[in-house]
């Protein structure tokens, strides 16, 4: 039975008004601007773009402001916004090998062609709170050095030349690229769908899943072959124009994880790989993604798949924080009718229990039981 519940409209309206007031906070404090969020909380913006699955710094900054800094709420807002725009099509795949590298490190090779560039990183900082940042901090201008024009090939491409590492899977002729925003998810899912799912997956979830593989739940012996961060150009074949149109550049982080070998009677052993790619500077995210991508290849590589990180249905069904928060948080919405029926059932069960208990404890019943 469905019972409409009326009432609460004024309470809801006033609650939203109160929320707007709280969001602004003390009005003697200057209001935060979207440019301030985008420029000074850049990594929060990157995360909202990645998991909101929409590259638009200004919208992500607006979402963060509207959500009062609750990033999952902001991601939810961005996802809802993207549903309001038409899709013009899909870009040409970006070439991360041609990235204008701002940061590039390898934990496997010291001397990589093009060199190791630390770029803007928290690595090697002491993680001590810096009181000088509290107010009026003016940073030194960055140091400059002559930039080399040498290409910066992906480390995995270098290893690949010697056959020491498996090559990336080629696209099958005429195969379309899976898109989980268009088709419902089915299992088993191909690698393209898995990577799309992980790319928009919750960083915390992927971090925990990746960590679990390191701790032995689906161990795969990872090394960071390379992490690179920088700008790549995006081209889009616009039918009306008739050629691939440059749209501008986006910032991406890419992680190539190199993992322990596979081999067979017919194939020499070689390193295997896991891959991570995300919008903006998102190193923890791409590293976790690469660990989980590799773990999810267990079946393909003939490994025993016993750990949660190797279970694609488990991982892919729980990685999306918008879906997850929707289902968890809906529990706080009115469930009065559901709860009434549960309550009715429970009362009936308790009545039956009392009756059975009383029947079992009559003097005759006790006597029979004693015999």
């Amino acid at each position, binding site marked *: 039975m469905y019972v409409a519940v009326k009432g609460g409209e004024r309470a809801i309206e006033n609650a939203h008004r109160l929320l707007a007031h709280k969001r602004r906070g003390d009005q003697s404090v200057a209001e935060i601007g979207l440019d301030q969020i985008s420029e000074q909380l850049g990594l929060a913006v990157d995360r909202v773009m990645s998991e909101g699955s929409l590259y638009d710094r200004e919208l992500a900054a607006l979402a963060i402001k509207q959500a009062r800094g609750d990033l999952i709420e902001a991601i939810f807002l961005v996802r809802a916004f993207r549903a309001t725009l038409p899709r013009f099509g899909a870009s040409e795949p970006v070439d991360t090998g041609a990235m204008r590298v701002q940061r590039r490190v390898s934990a496997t090779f010291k001397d990589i062609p093009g060199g190791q560039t630390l770029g803007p990183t928290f690595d090697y900082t002491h993680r001590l709170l810096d009181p000088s940042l509290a107010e009026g901090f003016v940073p030194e201008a960055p*140091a*400059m050095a002559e930039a080399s024009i040498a290409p910066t090939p992906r480390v995995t491409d270098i290893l690949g030349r010697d056959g020491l590492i498996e090559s990336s*899977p080629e696209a099958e002729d005429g195969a379309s690229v899976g898109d989980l925003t268009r088709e419902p998810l089915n299992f088993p899912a191909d690698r393209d769908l898995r*990577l799309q799912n992980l790319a928009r997956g919750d960083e915390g979830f992927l971090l925990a899943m990746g960590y679990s593989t390191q701790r032995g739940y689906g161990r795969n012996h990872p090394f960071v072959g390379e992490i690179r961060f920088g700008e790549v150009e995006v081209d889009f074949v616009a039918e009306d124009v008739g050629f691939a149109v440059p*749209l501008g550049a986006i910032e991406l982080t890419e992680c190539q994880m190199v993992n322990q070998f596979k081999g067979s009677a017919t194939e020499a052993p070689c390193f295997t790989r896991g891959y991570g790619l995300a919008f903006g500077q998102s190193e923890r995210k791409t590293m976790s993604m690469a660990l989980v991508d590799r773990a999810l290849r267990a079946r393909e590589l003939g490994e025993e798949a016993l750990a949660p990180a190797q279970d694609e249905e488990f991982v892919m069904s729980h990685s999306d924080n918008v879906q997850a928060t929707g289902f968890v948080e809906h529990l706080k919405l009115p469930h009065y009718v559901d709860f009434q029926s549960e309550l009715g059932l429970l009362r009936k069960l308790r009545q039956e229990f009392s009756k059975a208990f009383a029947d079992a404890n009559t003097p005759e019943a006790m006597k029979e039981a004693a015999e």
Partner: protein
Amino acid sequence: MTQHSNQQAQRKAAMAVLAHAEAGEIAARLRNLSLPDHQDLRAPENGLVMLRGRVGGDGAPFNLGEATVSRAAVRLASGEVGFGYTLGRNSEKARLIALCDALVQSRDFGGAVERDVIAPLREQLMIRRKQAAEAAAATKVDFYTMVRGEG
């Protein structure tokens, strides 16, 4: 190179610069030209493009996530049709790129738009990229090996 593919390469090169410029910068440069009559062939429109990566960087494509894109089309009185596409939601920028694309194709304005709009914007873009590359280069690691003992 045929004339057609030559012009196509020119248009692409111009778009590759314009997509990186601010709408205000393009508009300011265009004010130096006495522009021919033109009209919107298609009003600017905002939408999405699904951005693709490749498995392992060089393998089969996959869908990474979408980006906002603005697009427009402009026709000059002399008939040339230009298209403007750019990341973001700035429809004025898309229209200005479309206008420039039409001008690049025009016999009368092609030279002027390259000289007065595209070339200076390209130079600015190259300076910005050079600065970013130099700042990154200063963080490049010089490994050296410690010599142990007395040899």
